[in-house]
């Protein structure tokens, strides 16, 4: 069975400092993995996706994630946080039948 665990429910960083949002997954298949961002009262926006190509995936707004099979991790990073990055972030694993399994989310707070 597939599952995804976001290790932190809340993360606070200062503006201009690096961001790390952690995600571990479990999958019986070679997984597809995604990160989505949700700003208040908005829908989910795709940040990036991994589909068995390069293990380092670059996304929008300076975000990237690295797929590490040995650690079953897919952590999201950004070198320098902006105030506009404050939002809820969801890690998602796809089962291969187009069914998404969502993590519980990480709320990112960016301090001025």
């Amino acid at each position, binding site marked *: 069975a597939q599952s995804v665990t976001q290790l932190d429910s809340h993360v606070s960083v200062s503006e201009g400092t690096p961001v790390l949002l952690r995600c571990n997954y479990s999958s019986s298949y070679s997984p597809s993995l995604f990160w989505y961002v949700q700003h208040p009262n908005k829908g989910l926006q795709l940040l990036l996706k991994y589909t068995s190509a390069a293990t380092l995936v670059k996304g929008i707004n300076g975000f990237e994630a690295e797929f590490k099979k040995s650690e079953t991790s897919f952590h999201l990073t950004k070198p320098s946080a902006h105030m506009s990055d404050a939002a809820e972030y*969801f890690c998602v694993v796809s089962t291969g039948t187009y*069914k998404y399994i*969502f993590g519980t989310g990480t709320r990112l707070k960016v301090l001025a």
Partner: protein
Amino acid sequence: EAGVVQSPRYKIIEKKQPVAFWCNPISGHNTLYWYRQNLGQGPELLIRYENEEAVDDSQLPKDRFSAERLKGVDSTLKIQPAELGDSAVYLCASGRSTDTQYFGPGTRLTVL
């Protein structure tokens, strides 16, 4: 291209009343999903359509929820009668039979 359109954005109703949500997917996307997102949680799939066919409705509470996707384009999700526990954000997503799903802004339902 235009994104997924949902209406209404907000809905407040009394319990036991009916309610309906509408979704217009991205043009050319044959797969459509309805999700429910409870406060502080990740979205959970209610139903998935491939064209007109509901291919996964195992999580749809069929005693009170119904959905349709006429002509394989727009979709409507209905709740009748609504209960207090149905208060949530209802998200629609669409895709092209690939892994990536694109989400609409959601409808926030409040049942009083």
